[in-house]
């Protein structure tokens, strides 16, 4: 496969140990999947605890305090054990087969998004040139699980919730993609790795500070992303005050908790996309990374020959920065949920179709016209003298590296040469 970037190294390691290629691939893929599943399961545990704590503090309560010591650290784990023990019910009026399969659809779609999300330079399960495009495509599949859950429950509340969710998701996908396009126009690449790499250095290299349009696009994207993971004030699909519990009214036990795992993991995923597109990815923004220059090359041939410990440590630091940034954004989503009242369904649709879609269209146009404006007034395409390396520069840099495959006989000429 073109991807499985890190798996290839695992695979090579196992190959050298005398495994057959098929087993090496399978074991490597299994290890990667297990690491991601762990992350996928642990993040919701933490976020649900955080949500209770933050909600408690905002409402002048303490939140969980008993389980696991002073701060109630283990509250979610205790809840999880309770949920596993519950009976796995399916209502008599439901389409039982669909009812049982729907939570898995939601979880699989949400988990698949983690496949292409890089946590640090090269720390990604699958490297794809169309990473941003495919992650948006995968995130849009989660709604199918929710629609199926609502439809197969055989309950009017669940059906209403599912219909609202379908309407909401289909509409909010448009501004989400348009807002994601704004930094992509600047970057000139759909590859998450290149996007992260070009935002290294000081904080002004982050794409959010590139021009006014990317700055506004970040806030628009964050609003739309909150709606697309059906968080308050856009959580019409569950709206407790009107629809009992919306699409998951009839669910209980572990299947119910699957929906919440999917929801909290998606919150992390959309926040991670925002961090990669706008907020500098795994870079700190104070140029700590330039100090890592020596560290990255440090290779003491420790345990495995060819394994650079320095790279590993630098990537570990990057991954922590990335997860911290994403957690801050998730915290903002939680904060918004407990301080803003829920919108009505018509207001949700109005917000999307009459405000967010036009705003994102204007931002997209502006992002395209901005370099033209600068070129005609300042005679260069960025405000700052020291421009961050753009995607095109990175690509041409990559082109100059020695390639293993045969170079075509006639090289592609640049447009200037063609004009001559």
């Amino acid at each position, binding site marked *: *496969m*073109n991807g499985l970037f890190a798996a*290839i190294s695992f695979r090579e390691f196992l190959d050298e140990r005398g495994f057959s*290629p*098929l087993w090496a*691939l399978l074991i490597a893929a299994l290890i990667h999947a297990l690491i991601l599943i762990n992350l996928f399961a642990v993040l919701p545990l933490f976020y649900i605890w955080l949500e209770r704590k933050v909600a408690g503090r905002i409402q002048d309560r303490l939140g969980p305090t008993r389980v696991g010591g002073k701060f109630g650290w283990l509250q979610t784990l205790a809840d999880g054990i309770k949920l596993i023990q519950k009976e796995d019910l399916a209502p008599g*009026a439901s*389409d039982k*087969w*669909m009812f049982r*399969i729907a939570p898995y*659809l939601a979880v699989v779609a949400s988990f698949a998004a983690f496949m292409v999300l890089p946590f640090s330079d090269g720390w990604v399960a699958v490297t*794809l*040139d*169309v990473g941003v*495009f*495919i992650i*948006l*495509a*995968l995130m*849009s*599949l989660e*709604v*199918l699980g929710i*629609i*199926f859950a609502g*439809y*197969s429950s*055989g309950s009017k509340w669940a*059906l209403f919730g*599912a*219909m609202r969710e*379908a*309407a909401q*998701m*289909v509409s909010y*996908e448009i501004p989400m993609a348009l807002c994601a396009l704004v930094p992509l126009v600047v970057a000139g690449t*759909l590859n998450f790795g290149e996007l992260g790499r070009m935002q290294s250095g000081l904080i002004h290299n982050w794409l959010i500070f590139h021009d006014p349009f990317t700055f506004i696009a970040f806030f628009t994207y964050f609003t739309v992303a909150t709606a697309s993971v059906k968080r308050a004030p856009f959580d019409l699909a569950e709206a407790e005050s009107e629809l009992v519990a919306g699409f998951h009214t009839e669910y209980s036990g572990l299947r119910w908790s699957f929906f919440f795992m999917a929801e909290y993991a998606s919150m992390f995923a959309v926040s991670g996309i925002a961090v990669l597109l706008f907020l500098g990815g795994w870079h700190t923004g104070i140029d700590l990374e330039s100090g890592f220059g020596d560290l990255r090359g440090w290779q003491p041939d420790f345990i495995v020959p060819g394994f650079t410990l320095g790279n590993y440590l630098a990537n570990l630091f990057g991954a922590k920065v990335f997860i911290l940034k994403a957690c801050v954004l998730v915290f903002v989503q939680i904060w918004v949920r407990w301080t803003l009242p829920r919108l009505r369904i018509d207001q949700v649709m109005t917000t999307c179709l009459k405000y967010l879609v036009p705003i994102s269209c204007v931002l997209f146009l502006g992002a395209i016209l901005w370099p033209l404006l600068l070129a005609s007034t300042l005679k260069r395409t960025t405000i700052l003298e020291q421009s961050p390396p753009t995607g095109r520069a990175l690509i041409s840099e990559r082109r100059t590296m020695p390639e293993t*495959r045969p170079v*075509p*006989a*006639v*090289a*592609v*000429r640049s*447009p200037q*040469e*063609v004009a001559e």
Partner: protein
Amino acid sequence: MNADLLFYLFAALTCGGALGVVITQNIVRMAFWLILSLGSVSALFFLLGADFIGAAQLLIYVGGTVVLLVFGVMLTASGPYLQIKTSAADGLLGACVGGLLLFVLISTVCGLEWSELPGHQNSIGAVAEGIEGSTLRPLGLAFLGLRPDRATPGDETSGKLATGYLLPFEIISVHLLVVLIGAAYLARAKRRTVSDDHGLS
């Protein structure tokens, strides 16, 4: 060999999903089988290194079309779980059309001399193992009219920009936008005049 194994897995899922769509009678379960089938097709695209088409398949067919289909069913279905019963005549007609299509496909596949095709050297395995790389960059360049793969040595014009597909693509997309706006205009809530509703009362 790995790629072959994955190919057979996803090919089986594609065919199984398609069979499920035909056999099942519950329309929402049909949608589920359709998801399985279309999703496996996108996995096949990924195996071939066509990342962009695979992602587009996921976004447009699985994420877009099937959601709209289920949405339409939920809005229009009269009973709780809509069943579709096909009559024998419909089944016969469908079998005829399907059989003819299968015949055309099989005769085409058998009639081609595969070893003489230009792309044959890059077998599926080679592409899947990442030797050839993804097709995204060649696709993007071809859109702008750059076809380095078609360049022949010694040809003066080969490095120049040929006619790309960008203009036709833009024209089609503007057309689609016009169609969308037109549909929204036709389907909008009609503004009722007072004389229509309450004029007589």
